[in-house]
Each structure stands twice: as structure tokens, then as C-alpha cells.
């Protein structure tokens, strides 16, 4: 797998670290609703097919990226900065 970092260009998988499901909205820290937080922390989707994931360019620019990846084929459709940016 190769990921095209928006800052560094296309780089080998070895430079990146997987950072989890990017589809679950993270509640605000001021939100003390345990149900919402439990949903975010523990209910992770594990779909076969297209998925939104966080990856960090750990051994590169260290940017956190949002990657649209097919978990079955490892095809990458899109790499961007995390939502909101």
C-alpha cells in the first residue's frame, strides 16, 4: 500500500501508522454523556469494502490524514486532511 500524503507525496506504507476509524464523530470533552463516548471509543465499524480511516504519517511529516480505503482490496480512493480542515 502506498499513501499519497498531501504534504509529502506518495510514500510507502512503512512510513505510516494506522489510527483507527474516522467515521465516528468524537464527542466534545465537555460532553460527559458516557453513552456517546462509549459509542465513539468502543463501537468501531469493521466493514469489508470502503472505509474512512485515520492514518498518521508517523515517519514523515507526522500529519494525521483521513484516508478513504477499501479494506478488501487496499485500494485508496482519497487522502485528505481530517474533516473540518
Amino acid at each position, binding site marked *: 500500500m502506498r499513501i499519497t500524503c498531501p504534504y509529502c507525496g506518495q510514500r510507502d506504507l512503512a512510513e505510516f501508522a494506522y489510527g483507527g476509524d474516522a467515521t465516528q464523530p468524537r464527542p466534545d470533552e465537555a460532553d460527559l454523556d458516557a453513552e456517546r463516548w462509549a459509542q465513539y471509543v468502543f463501537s468501531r465499524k469493521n466493514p469489508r469494502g470502503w472505509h474512512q480511516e485515520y492514518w498518521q504519517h*508517523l515517519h514523515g511529516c507526522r500529519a494525521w490524514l483521513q484516508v478513504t480505503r477499501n479494506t478488501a482490496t487496499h485500494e485508496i480512493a482519497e487522502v485528505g486532511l*481530517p474533516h473540518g480542515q
Partner: protein
Amino acid sequence: MANRLPNAIGIDTDSPIEFSFNGRRYTGLQGDTLASALLANHQRIIGRSFKYHRPRGILSIGSEEPAALVTLGTGAQAEPNTKATTVMLRQGMAASSQNCWPSPRFDLMAINGLFAPFFVAGFYYKTFMRPASAWEPLYERVIRRAAGLGKAPDGPDPDRYGQIEASCDVLVIGGGAAGLEAARTAAATGADVMVAEERAWFGGQLALAPALVNGQAGQDWVEQTVRELEGQPNVRLLKETAAYGLYDDKVVGLIETVASDAPSGARQRSWVVRPKQVIFATGAIEQPLAFVGNDLPGVMLAGAALGYAFRFGVAPGKAVLLAGGDEQIVQTALSLKQLGVHVVGVVDSRQTPPSDGMARLADAGIPYHVGCVIGRARGWQSVAGAEIVPLEGTAARMNERQSVRCDTVAVSGGWQPSVHLQCHLGGRPGFDQTHGIFLPPELGEGFQTVGRAAGVINDGDWGPVDRLRVFPAAGGGKRFIDWQHDVTVEDVELAYREGYRSVEHLKRYTTLGMGTDQGKTSNILGLHALATVLGSSVAEAGTTTFRPPYIPITFGALTAAERDRDFRPVRRAPAEAAHRALGAEMITAGLWYRPRVYPQPGESAAHAVRREAAQVRATVGVVDVSTLGKIALVGPDAPEVVNRLYANGMKTLPPGKARYGLMLRDDGLIMDDGTVARFDTDRYLLTTTTANAALVLSHIEFLLETAWVDLQAMAISVSDHWAAFAIAGPQSRAVVQALLPEEDLSAEALPFLGVRETLFEGKDCLVMRNSYSGELAFEVYVTADHGLRLWEQILQVGQAYSITPYGTEAMATLRIEKGHIAGPELDGRVTADDVGLARMVARRKPCVGQALRHRPGLQKPNRPRLVGLLPMDSQAPLKAGSLLRPIGAQEGGDAIEGHVTSVTFSPAMDSMIALGMLTRGDARHGEIIEIWDGLANQTFTVKVVPPVFVDPQGERLHG
């Protein structure tokens, strides 16, 4: 050269190469493989077989070779089980036979062959069942020595290996006609192309047999095409590079042989290639025939016999008999004859071959035995003759057999496309009824199989679908299917009789195809033998699973440079050399080396730890804390970020002060702890434990970039930028004052947890008054390149105060005495409440982990809580990891109430002390319980005490 045929295309007759085989010196030629050089020197017996120790010769001309295995090199560099057919001859190469003693010609272990009836399929499983006690001492040792392949080298491999990550648009596996043409086509589109060819030359079959390509000699076409490809910047051609595995996401593993026996030079490179498209041009592999004596040296695949003559100018023998059942065997005989090889006949199992072949053989004066098979190959150690038997249907007319004198029997059971790699992702090959071959599975977009591997054949066809491959056992004897594992047709029949009828069972019971050749020449023959006893078709018999690696690969190539001390990078703190010079015992902490203890000459480490810890409490000590994680956090919103990151209140932390910081994970459990120092309204330094430095930095970056995107702050690691030393003990202020004479370090000017930025000898310096040991203490930071200087200066000025350097062991002693938590307590399962820090955590403050730390399971009253443990016997050898249970409890199970986390001998208490996690421990102070060391089966009676052993009021802290 006297022993070579003229006009060979692959050798340079002017460049002799000296090599040795079993200690004897021989001469080969530049371009030879070890196999061709051995054949040219009339060495036909290469080694002995796995079970029966029968002589083994050279069957093939490539990586499909099951028989000609040698050990290359000697001593620690020795590489056992190397295929002589794949090794390029190099100057001074030393090869030796395996599985034989004293020599391959005269092998005492060949006596195994006499016991052959006992070594049938599954002999491991049934012969040595009982008594079990005899397995290890008798069966394993004796049988393993008698049966087996080469010996593993006895020392660490001194050779070097490399690893390369690569990518390309198109990876072509196989550099034969189809592969080169595919590469040329792809390159013409501008694509970035890589071609991996496992042999040391390109051309595939064109390099091994005479052929024409568009009217041009095959070899000329190959040379021209390779030259053309070499001239293109977007093409990379790799020779001696075998694809060994296909993995998810089109990842292909390649092994490139740089030098098969380079003394301590780079030997192999492993490539991990991520191509966008994979083209399999893997060709086809010729299959042998089963007949009695077919394993004798001198029996060779017909294509290999022709290849040795055509490419290397090596006649496979002085008198060659060919056997097959298609047009190609006729053509091979004619080609051999044309190259100057003496062909004594062609045996063709077909009853009515086309007439033109008959005429051409007659013209060439080659006897043609139509409707015949080989009844047996005769010979003691290698082929001396063969019996030709006419067929009646599939039965042999034994009374009409005739003997032929020959030293080589070149056989062909037809070709099978090489589909191994294409099946590594789990697909199975499909049987092509019209051609009688297995074809690769459909792999979808981005994969393509071309040429012979795809079933495309130009010269003639694949031969008769119903060709005879398993010849009748004329007069009895072994008909081999697997040359390496000594599996015979009779073994397949026996396995069938014993109920092993699925091909997967057959494979495991007989070990058919499980050798280093992975059944490249035995699977098809085995399937035909199985289909015969099953009375079914080959398609119905099915195939076994193909798994990587396609060829044997060395561990060296896979680990490459990542071994021994290079397994992981080493991080060295600025003063490391000084610690070593002081005689410190070093210990790894993550990637770092840290001083564990500084024993004086003649002093035991245990004593040194006590001395160091006691001295800190008595006068002063210094410990290197440069390896702690250090993160700079800056920005207008840095205060808010810090407040959200830590569970304890940070809003009130003013500039110029530091505070202990407890970091939770999202799930409410403790992630890490450290110090938060504030230098300015918008500038912080956060420290982490050595172990969690990388994790915490990624965590902060994640939050800043994905969640708290509206906050303006940046985090960056400054772990490598600062050297840091903790100076602790009643005299620490005097030492730091001597280091920084200009500074006012009084309790008023720099109170507990005060921080200050200053200069040490003109270099940036931080002073932080915090304490891990419970003593009056200062952490002094200086820019890393001045760290060694600061360390030396601390020891220098500290002399007047009897300063001692102390290591991580004494540091642990001091923190256990104070009940400070560290890695052993923070094992990812504990909450702030569990370790007695509940009061520190602000209850409603918005911070990471706040919402989930109140979950009912984390609030249960019976959770293990941090306690101190004081043994009744002050010298009790407590061990961390031991379990806690009530006095008199039996064994473990439900009685277990927790475990010991940290243990030390406390000089202050003059006793062993421990920290542990004990169910409801905070409410059980004073109780007597038991520490159970289940491994040593020891128990120790201990008293549960508060986790702070020394100075519970914290008075020493303030000096």
C-alpha cells in the same frame, strides 16, 4: 574445452572458473551453473536422498530441481539444500554433497534402502508410536541423523543482506519471451516497468532450446530485446531475482541473489515491491515420468538435457535415450542429435504418432520405439541402460522387452504452466480439459498471466491429454514421484489403501511435494498416480494449496540488516559514554541505553543499588533523566489544550511553575504521567515516561489535528533537544547553586515545583524543582550537545557534597519507598482511583477520559488498589509478578486478590518492600496476607501498609 559441445550460447570458453566439489578441484566456465559445471566434469551423483539415501543426480535445469541439492560454502557461511541448478558458478566456489557419509558414491547410510519396506508412507506415524519414552532419545536422534537434508550451519551467518522497498507501474515476473514482450509493450506506454527473472539470464525457453522468433534466432531476439529494454530509463531489469510470494494488495516479494557465496559480502537482497499491475510470465515446468529406476542419476528431464547441451555445451551423457509421449520428444531428440549428442533412441508411449516425426527420426538414424515405455532404468549408482517395453493398452508386454545401453534417459511427461504465485492469494488452479493442464485462477483487475503460464504455447501443443505418465512397474521396483522426499507410486497406492484419499491428506501422509522444491516436478505426477488409484480424473483429484515461498529463501534475506544490535535503532543520550566510563551497568529502556547501577570495583550490583539509594537520602545523588519524553507545546490556546489533556486541574498553573500531570485515555484508564511546566502564557514543556514518549506525542497530535481543530496550538518532540539530570538529596541545592552561581535558588525564589529558564555556561538551561525520590531535588536541563559537559560538571562540583551518580535501580528504590507509580503499576488496566490519585482528578472538568472513567465497572469497590507490602521476614526474596492471596489459601483461582507490581530492598526501611495491586487494598492496611510465587512455589507473609514507606508527610521534599 574437450568436454564441451561447440556453439553453446551461454558460456565463455575463454574464462575458466575454478571450483570444488566435495573437496576436489574442478574447472567450469564463465556462464555455467554449478549443475552444468558438475555435468561437464562428469559428476553425476550429487547427493543422497532424504529417506533411502539413494544416489541423486541432476533432474532439471532450474528452480524446480528436487534432487541435486548441495551445501554451498563452509562453516558459518554454509548454505544447505541449495539447488545446484540455480547457482551460478563463481570463482573459488566450494560445494559439497549432503546426506551421505563418507561420500555420495559410497554412502554407509544407504543401508536405509535395504530397510525400505519400513520407510513407507506415514512411517513416522505408525512405526514409532510406542513407547513414547523412546521418541526423543532413540527415534528422533537416530532417525533424524539417518534421514534428512543438509545440516544447518553452526554459527551466526557472517554474510550481509539487504532489503529494498520498491514500487512500479508494472511488475513482470519472468523474463522469457512472454515476459520480455510484455515488458516492451508496457514500457512503450511510458509505464515504470520492473522485470524479475529468476535465472542469471533472460530468455526463458529461448535460452535453453533452439527456436526461431519471427524468423530470427531465439537468442538473438532475446539479446536485442534486452538491449532495447536496458536502454529505457523507465525499465528495471533484475536477473537472479526470483518472485517468492504474492501477497495482499499486489505486494510481491523478490529475492535477488547478489553473490551466492560472497565471503562476507552482500549475498542477497530482498525486495518488497508494490506494483500497480502484475504480469505473470512464469512459463511452464516440464514434468517427469514414473518408471522403475527413474530416480537414478542419469535420468533427466528432456528439456533440461537439451538445455545443458544447447546453452552450456554439456552433453547430458555419452548415450542418451529419450522417453515421452508427444511430438516434442521427437523434436528434442533431433535437436540433441544436431548439437552433437549421441542419441540412442526415442521411446514414445503413443500407439500412432504422426508419420513425419517417424520419417525425421529415420532420416537422422535414431531408432524410434513407438507404443513403448521405459520398463526400468538399470544401473547401480547411475544409469547404465534401460529396458524398453511395448504397451498393450496400459499394460506392459514384458516378454517383448528389449534392453538398450545408455547412460542417460531423458524423459518428458509434458509441461505444466507454473501457477504457484498466482495461487498464493488463495485461488486454486483450474483444470483445462482440452489441454490436460492446470491453468491459473482469475485474479481480477491488475493481474495478468501471459505466455506458457497462461496456457499459450507456440511450438506445437501441450501434447495428448491422456498421455501415459505412470508407466507399468515392469518386474517390480520403486517408481519415484518425489525425488526429494522419496515418495513413490507405491506410497500413493498405500496411502489410498489406508484411507488417505483426499489430495490434501495424501500430501501430508506421504509428504509428497513438501520438499524444498514444493512439488514443482512431483505434484502433477502425484495427482495422476492418485487419480489412477481413485479411478477418477485428475480434475476430480483436485490440487493442494499453494503457499509462499515459491523457492526457499534465507532468513538472512528476510531479516536483512535488522538483526542483532541493528534489530532496532539505538538512541544514545548525551552522557552515555560518561556512564560507561564510570563502570555503569547499562540497561535498555525502549531504544535507549540507561545506566542501571554504578558498581564500584569489587562491589556487587545489589550492594551498589542500596549504596546509591542510601546516599541520595543522606547527601546527594544525580541520575540521568535525558530519556524522558519531552514535548514542547506552544500557541495561544496551549493552556486550554493542556487542561484538556490532563485529568488534574491545569488552568491554575501559572507561568514559572510546574505540576504533576496525569493523562487518561479516552476510556478513562491511565495513559501516562509526567510533569507539566509552564514558562509563559503560551509555552509549556510536557514530560512523559521514557516508554510512552512516542505514544503521547501521537495522541496529542491526533487530538490537535482531528478533534480540537479550533484550538491554536502545536506540539513537537524536544526529547532529543534537551539533556536532563535530576539532582536529589539534602545537599542538592548546594550542588545546583555551585553549577549556577548567579541564580537565587532559595526556597523563596524557587519554591517546590518552581521552574526557571536560565543559561549554563552560555547554553539554554532549565531548572525545575520537582522530586521523584521524595528528597529535595532539582532537574537541570541543558541543550543536548552540552549535556555531557553538564553531567561532568555536576559530578565535579558535587564532589564537595559526596555526590553519587545513581542508576535506574536506585531511582526505582527511591520511588517505591515513596509509593510513586511507574510503568509496573501503570499497566493499562488501572484508574486514577486504583492508584490513589482520585482526589487529584477534577470531577467535572472537561478532559480526555473524564466521561468514561465513571463507568460502573471502573467504580466497583472490589477493584485492586495500590498498597504497600512489608514482609514479616525483612530479607524475603519477593518478586514482582507474584500473586497476592489470603493466608492459607490453596493455589490460585478465586483466592487470588491481586499481584505484586514493584519490589526493592529499601535502605531506609532496612527491609524488602513492595508495591502491589490488592482487591480493596486501600481499606485493608494492617492486614496480614500472603505473597505466592507460583513459579518457585514459595509463599511469604506480608503486612498490607499504605504505599508510602518513607516520609509520608513529604517534609524532606522541601529541604
